């Protein structure tokens, strides 16, 4: 095979692999903005459907409007009929995600009545409708969002303070047993979180922390403290202690030195480990399933939303909401990892 042919084949393979990732995501995005009617469509469309093609016909005998929608095959299928514009308004938003006022609808539809012809309209979908609906359909979704953020924040605090001090001790002091500490942090990371959560439930009830975000954050911190220690250790080792000594020699206090010299230099490491901590807390389902009762996290709520298939499009929009912050942090982290190793 010549080199141009090889190159084409290579890029074909690459495109195929990339599509294996993109296509499922595209479908998920499209389902997350789907209206109640589209959920039952088959086949599903891969490209986002942002508008509906409708046809409006005035039935003179029964004196109502017949509303039809263009289907995948290109034919118009009858959806409903009505003569009342307020009913049509409700129908459009409920079943088609089209938000139009009564007046706008009347203005468009009246043409069909006046001329007696079938008229064709292209109405844009309100793509944020499902996201709003998600918070209405699932009780406590907004509380769950707040809970998730809270749990993540506490996890970050615990991991940074406890893990950061281990990292500092490992890098800067002459303590004994450094190998034992490294091994210990590996062992606790390898321990399944679910296995800890079962006996932990009993303990948390005793401590009065069952069903609280602090309780969850404690479990999330178990692997993250070790990880933070490992990341901060390497960064504390890379900061030259002579900078700090120079600052002290020139008369700065210890606190000033930390604020002006050490802290800015170690900030990226702390940012990276906070992102790890955030992702652990944000993504978890298992631990919050076992250790909460009423105070769900967002990921747990999404897990439970699987029940009713009638609301799968709302669950999908909830899933998109859950994905966005995790996606952002993962890519920020990736840049950091590249800097560290590349």
């Amino acid at each position, binding site marked *: 095979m010549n080199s141009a042919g090889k190159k084409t084949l290579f890029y074909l393979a*690459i495109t195929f*692999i*990339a599509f294996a*990732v*993109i296509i*499922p995501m595209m*479908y*998920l995005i499209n*389902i997350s903005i789907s209206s109640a009617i589209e959920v039952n*469509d*088959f*086949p*599903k*469309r*891969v490209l986002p459907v942002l508008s509906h093609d409708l046809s409006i016909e005035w039935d003179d005998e029964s004196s109502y409007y017949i509303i039809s929608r263009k289907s995948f095959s290109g034919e118009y299928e009858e959806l409903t009929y009505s003569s009342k514009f307020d009913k049509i308004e409700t129908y459009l938003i409920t079943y088609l995600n089209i938000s139009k006022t009564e007046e706008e609808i009347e203005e468009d539809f009246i043409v069909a009545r006046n001329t007696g012809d079938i008229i064709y309209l292209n109405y844009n979908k309100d793509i944020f409708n499902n996201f709003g609906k998600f918070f209405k359909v699932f009780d406590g979704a907004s509380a769950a969002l707040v809970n998730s953020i809270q749990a993540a924040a506490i996890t970050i605090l615990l991991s940074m303070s406890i*893990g950061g*001090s*281990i990292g*500092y*001790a490992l890098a800067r*002091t002459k*303590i004994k047993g450094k190998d034992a500490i490294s091994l*210990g942090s590996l062992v*606790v990371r*390898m*321990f*399944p979180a*679910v*296995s*800890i959560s*079962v*006996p*932990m*439930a009993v*303990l948390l009830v005793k401590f009065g922390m069952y069903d609280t975000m602090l309780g969850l954050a404690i479990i999330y911190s*178990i692997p993250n*403290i070790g990880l933070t*220690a490992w990341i901060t250790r390497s960064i504390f080792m890379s900061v030259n202690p002579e900078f700090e000594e120079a600052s002290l020699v020139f008369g700065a206090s210890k606190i000033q030195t930390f604020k002006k010299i050490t802290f800015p230099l170690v900030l990226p490491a702390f940012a990276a480990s906070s992102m790890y901590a955030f992702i652990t807390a*944000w*993504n978890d*389902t298992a631990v919050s*399933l*076992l250790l909460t009762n009423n105070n769900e996290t967002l*990921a*747990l709520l*999404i*897990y439970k939303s*699987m029940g009713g*298939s009638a609301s*799968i499009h709302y669950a*999908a929009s*909830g*899933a998109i909401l*859950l994905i966005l912050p995790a*996606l952002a942090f*993962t*890519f920020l982290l990736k840049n950091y*990892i590249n800097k560290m*190793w*590349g």
Partner: protein
Amino acid sequence: MEKNKKGTVKSVFKSPYMFLVPALLFYTFFWLLPVSLSLIESFTSIDGGFSLENFKMMFDDPLFGEAFRNTLIFAVISLFLQFIFALMFALLINRNFKGSKWFLFIMLIPMAIPPSAVGILWNTGLVESGWINSLLSVTGLQNLIELLGIAEGPIIWKEASGLQAVFMIILIDTWTVLPSVMIILLAGLQNFNEEYSEAARIFGANRFQALKDIVIPIIKPTIITALLLRIISGLQVWLISVMIFGFNNVPFLLERIVFYTDQVRLGVYSYKLSVTYSVFVVAVVSITAYIFIKLTKGKDWSGTSE
């Protein structure tokens, strides 16, 4: 508290070991305590004496055998698949072709999706009028499937059971975690000096030999870390199984723990069962990790001993 040379209270607080005190307290209360509690719980009967009846109860669980088998099959096969594909993609991206940055960006997306969102994503695909059957129908593959007699009409994915269902979960898991294995291997490859494998090829090795004898042995430590982390989390599969097939249909060890904690309320018995399962999972994870480390030590990946 550590003994200090001077022995005064003030110098104890200035000791560098003070940095470790918070961690020590944290892990004593929130790790050692629950771990030892579950060990004790699993080996004591309801009335408090030492007994093995909890383990007997666990082995008597009609789904224990299948859960154990599924977990092991899942961990081993997904590890194998993920390693092969991750290495392949990492080598592709490492070639720095035009657009490799974009390719990497796209390939990393699944890593960022929280597990419960992965569950939703594949659920919307696996239902009968879902996007997987849509894709088959639009691309014409559905006709091929019917022509070959694999299925009549749209495939009902959610009715899969036994090993078929386990393989479906393996594929979904592979789709999800491939990037995290790939990124570790890629970091290893980027530290690897390209000149080594060039030298090997100048001396007549073909591309595969250079990969097998030069590249893989050099990035071996990276590979071991990536695979160890993978097999440990592979043993902890449950969420996708429950979100797609529901409880009890495709059992896994962790699925049993969640089932007995969250779904059944047998009072003290369900607690005993989930604790015993937890201890069992920890034992399986530790033994697997131990075997894995033993197997990879002193042996290189091409199969010849060092």
